[in-house]
């Protein structure tokens, strides 16, 4: 079992020193930003032009839903959010620290990333995980 929390997804980086961040992969030719490693750009098809970048911590809410029914054991309601990060890249995640009421959530609102324990979820070996969330900026 790892003493440190593990990242919930591959594109969440937890450096030995410094703060966690989300990593994107950006095409050097057309500027498309992807989550996860890849060598070919699916927008402009160029090869070997992709490099890792640190994604920005802030962005705007593009779309969302308030989820009232999920799979058994998942706490509801919660806000499932699609966020366009400043500087490129779109990320999906939970929007927290806001009332899960569609009337109170504004499209285009500014949000920022926050990194927290993954809702207490552990894997089979008992490892803890760090995840990312959005909150109003």
């Amino acid at each position, binding site marked *: 079992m790892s003493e440190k929390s593990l990242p919930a997804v591959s594109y969440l980086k937890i450096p030995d020193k410094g703060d966690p961040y989300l990593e994107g992969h950006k095409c050097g030719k057309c500027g498309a930003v992807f989550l996860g490693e890849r060598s070919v750009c699916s927008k402009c098809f160029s090869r070997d032009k992709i490099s890792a970048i640190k994604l920005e911590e802030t962005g705007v809410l593009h779309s969302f839903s*308030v*989820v009232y*029914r999920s799979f058994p054991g998942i706490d509801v309601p919660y806000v499932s959010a*699609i966020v366009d990060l400043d500087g490129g890249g779109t990320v999906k995640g939970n929007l927290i620290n806001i009332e899960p009421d*569609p009337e109170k959530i504004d499209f285009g609102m500014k949000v920022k990333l926050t990194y927290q324990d993954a809702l207490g979820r552990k894997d089979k070996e008992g490892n803890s*995980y760090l995840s990312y969330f959005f909150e109003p900026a």
Partner: protein
Amino acid sequence: MSDVYVLGVDMIKFGRFPDRTVPNIGAEAALMALDDAGLTIKDMQAMYCGNLGQANAMVGQRILQEIGQTGIPVVNCANACATGATAFREAWMSIKAGIYDVVLAVGVEQMGKGLLGGAGGGDGIPKEGLLGSGTMPCVFAEAGMEHSKDHGTTFEQFAKISVKNHHHSTMNPKAMYQIETPLDVVMNAEMISYPNTKLMCSVNVDGSAAAVLVSEKKAKELGMGRAVRVKASALASDPFTDRDLVMPDVNACTRLAAEQAYEMAGVGPEDINLVELHDCFATAEMLHYENLGLCKDGDAGKMIDEGHVELGGKVPVNVSGGLLSKGHPLGATGIANIYEVCTHLRGEAGERQVEGARLGMTHVIGLGTACGIHILEKV
């Protein structure tokens, strides 16, 4: 290249058949379509079978094991919710290519109940409810909310779509449900993922549908009486759009396939008399009014408010009851909507008949993404 015709087509009444097998459910529709065409399995030169849940289990061959093992080539297709349309299109292509004259296409699914989808699988911990939701009601809610953001579309407008489709299904004996659901009932049903309430989510059902496709030569030989011409068949995958890999873009894929279908058919949206489109959620149907060019961008809300998409309206949409009430057996849906349109073009739709229907369109979209569109014409 030969024109291709649907000579026989049928579907079973959708329902829940936990005691039957997938091939057994598929075999029933296959036999019905053969009967409708006045042909037998001995006349079929190939079979294309669509099924998702048992995609690795040779469902097409197992159907033939129930209805006649003639040794014909069988291709099993899986393409998410476009599975049935893909099987139909493969059959169409084989005739277009001049390889066969008489081909059977079958779509079948046994679903069970419950939510489909879910965010992220793989290693580590479950991601559902941690990184947003990957459940289908949520994914399509987010797509609908994008429309609300751009055009001010309301919860009530989305809900009206469900009222309409449930109303249509009261006239369709093959639909899972024949129940009126007034607006307040739809809006006050259990909220699943805002703005989709339970009555705005498609019904998971078991079902099957099948079609016999023939070449022009064969159609003339057998008699064109009830034949329906396949005027266009288009299949698209998701072209790159900026958010597509995080938020499946059902719009771009549908627009691409629609453009190709209209071009192939040499017609425009204004020529279409009825549409069976992929209302997996009420939010999805709203988007496709615009994606299929039935109205200008931003006017989808008006289409439902002003009744243009109801039976009797300018372009009735989902007069079968749609996935919302007829039900959505994934692999069967793409052929079931071809059955519906053919039934209207043949003038055999009874109480829900779209009067004077000459051209109809079917549309399905499976996330991942695949969009299949067919334009069918009365002969």
